[in-house]
């Protein structure tokens, strides 16, 4: 493969197309295949040759692919990306489309980085264009009503969605995920896609749910992804866990040290400790210390929501200490001041308590006249997992 001439290569492509051999054809058009290193195929203008041997639209597709190998060999990812844009709709060869769209996204990424280094172009321009291309492929797949289930292009939907999710998350335009999710959820094939695709799909829909503060579905989706992710993919499991952990913590389930150590996520250790002990000081310190990591993963803001849980845990300690059902508000104020919280006064204490009552974390009411929190004699601090 690495030494064939252009004619031999084109002959192989022709045979693959003629024989409707999707997987072999996809290899011939994928950048993961060794043929791309063959200098005889790296041509700047292969159009004429391709036209001689292949029918449209394959002639243009292959020509673009070969121009791309030429550009990549010269490290010009921007050109490579442009060459790639011309491949789009494929009518029967889904594996070909998968290979091509995957490479498209990767090239768009590389082109972005190159442009950024040079300081040119609008941010996210390349990736947005790639997304537009992928979206048109998706539409073709989703609207395929003609073929029977086995031949349907609908099988391409999840793969393409996953590619699009990756782009949308990168350019921070999550609202664009919604139509894709809707299309797949309403499809009758939704449970029959490959396990790998489903895991990826659930990973992204879980992250989207997190972003929308729908924590119950987020936990469901991310747990699915974590449990069905292949045991050997440590890296992927770790990535899923980064998002699953905050959601679980918000629902009151703290991870064990063992788990954190196993997946090299010790950044969460002090966060977990702070939250479960009601130690706001430790939580704030942990958030500051690993700020960069949390921001890069996009979970910093969600971890801040853990403060509400932390207040609840702290105040529960106050209740347990004082052993009475009529708790002076001043005692809560003292507990907050011990956590070195600046400029908190009784008004804010009342607000924090009122909010915990509103959310169902505390059963009781505040008496303004007596400046006390009066809690229920039965289970005044319901378990976190039982509070929605």
């Amino acid at each position, binding site marked *: 493969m690495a030494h064939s001439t252009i004619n031999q290569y084109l002959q192989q492509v022709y045979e693959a197309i003629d024989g409707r051999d999707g997987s072999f054809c996809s290899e011939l058009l994928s950048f993961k295949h060794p043929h791309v290193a063959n200098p005889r195929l790296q041509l700047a*203008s292969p*159009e*004429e040759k391709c*036209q001689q041997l292949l029918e*449209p639209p394959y*002639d*243009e597709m292959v*020509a*673009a692919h070969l*121009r791309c190998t030429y550009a990549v060999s010269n490290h010009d990812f921007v050109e490579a990306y*442009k*060459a790639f*844009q*011309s491949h789009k709709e494929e009518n029967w060869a889904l594996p070909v489309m998968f290979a091509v769209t995957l490479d498209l996204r990767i090239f768009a990424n590389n082109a972005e980085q190159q442009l950024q280094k040079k*300081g040119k*172009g*609008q*941010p996210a321009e390349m990736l947005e*264009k790639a997304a*537009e*291309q992928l979206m*048109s492929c998706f539409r073709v797949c989703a609207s395929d009503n003609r073929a029977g289930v086995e031949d349907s292009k609908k099988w391409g939907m999840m793969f393409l969605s996953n590619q699009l999710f990756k782009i949308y998350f990168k350019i*921070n335009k*999550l609202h664009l995920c919604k139509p894709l999710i809707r299309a797949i959820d309403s499809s009758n094939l939704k449970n029959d896609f490959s396990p790998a695709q489903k895991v990826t799909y659930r990973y992204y829909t879980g992250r989207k749910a997190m*972003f929308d503060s729908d924590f119950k579905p987020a936990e469901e989706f991310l747990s699915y992804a974590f449990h069905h992710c292949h045991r050997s993919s440590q890296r992927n499991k770790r990535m899923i866990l980064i998002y699953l952990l905050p959601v679980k913590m918000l629902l009151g389930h703290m991870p064990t040290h063992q788990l954190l150590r196993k997946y090299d996520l010790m950044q969460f250790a002090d966060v977990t400790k702070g939250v479960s002990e009601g130690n706001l000081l430790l939580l704030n310190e942990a958030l500051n210390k690993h700020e960069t990591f949390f*921001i890069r993963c*996009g979970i*910093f*803001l969600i971890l*801040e*929501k853990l*403060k*509400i849980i932390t207040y609840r845990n702290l105040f529960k300690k106050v209740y347990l200490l004082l052993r009475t059902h009529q708790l002076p508000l001043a005692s809560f104020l003292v507990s907050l001041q011990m956590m070195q919280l600046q400029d908190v006064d009784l*008004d*804010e204490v*009342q*607000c*924090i*308590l*009122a*909010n915990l*009552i*509103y*959310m169902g974390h505390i059963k009781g*009411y*505040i*008496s*303004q*006249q007596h400046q006390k929190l*009066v809690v229920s004699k039965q289970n005044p601090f319901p378990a976190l997992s039982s509070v929605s």
Partner: protein
Amino acid sequence: MSRRRAPRRISLSQRRDAPAGGEWRQRTEEQRRGKAEVREVEEEEERQEHHGKESVPRGTCQTMCPTRELQDRQLQNCLHRFELLAGTERDRRPRGDPLRAVKEYSRPAAGKDSTNSSDLRPAAVLLKTVCYLIDKVAASPHLRPWTEVYNFVFDRLRGVKQDMIIQRTSGLNCVAILERTVRFLIYASYRLCGEPLRLYDPRINDTHLQENLSWLLDCYATGTEPHPNQEEFQALGLLYNLGSARAAQHIMELPERLRCSPAITLALSINRAFHEQNPVRVLRLARRLNFMQSCALHRHLVSCRRDLLLIYSHGFSSRNCRFPLDRLAQLLFLDASLTTRLCQAHGVEVNRDSQLIFSKAAFTEPEQLHCKLYHNIVAEKQRDLSVGDIIHGCT
């Protein structure tokens, strides 16, 4: 169709920046049909490419309104009353004043050529136009009512933006123009709050504000020059979009030195208090905002106060509840009578001794809330700032 032509056709359409969807498909079809016109156009474009000709239009119009448009609108009697030559207002056909006429926004349409250089204003002229619109129209003490002033300035700013888009303007002039546009729209969102829908639509204002803000933030991200006002606008963006995870994430990804600036730190702490569902803290921190920042936060005031009443309705809900009205008034930053009114609108009972009786069952969403009644917290910050100062950013 000779064999020699065909390869050139493929490379041409593929080498150019692939246009979105429809255009590309159309061209391929035309190629297959072998239309002669397509070939001609492509040859012409190829010739232009070979000459290295830039296809970005460059404006040459040195006046706020292109002469041709002024004459046309004068003939058709389509000049705005703010554009008329003094003394001719009551004529059958009033005359336009070239020192007051400003190019309108016109919707792009098929067949309309918007790239004629003499109709486009270069960046320096655009900035002068914007300054005129602010100083002589928006800030004018004579032109009334302000809803009409707003509509005029809104439209003409849109025209400025259009010229910028066509000429792909970037750099310091672009930033200066966008900054003023954003400030104008933020100020308007406060000033025209409560006006009837036919005179002012907050949703349209919001759409344009977000577009301009988004472009401005992109300019900050791509340019290499320092932007002295960046801190101000990043903070304004976060305040205006309080509660938006996307906006907050954007701020978190800014370089640390910028994130630690006072304006952004304050905006972040307000955002944090909002996420922790602590409206008392939100309103308290909001006191530290300056006038423009308060205008940006303004549209969240209603929901903030509503949240407070809702949370307190649950937290203090008991048969013997007695919460002093004055205390609540302080928390809401309203006077006693307005607080009473707000409570009643939310179903919170006020008894004869000015005590509130919170009850979670009684809380209701108000039907129609007139924000304007309650936004003194913003109004009092304006003090003796002139409209011109506010929009140019000399606060």
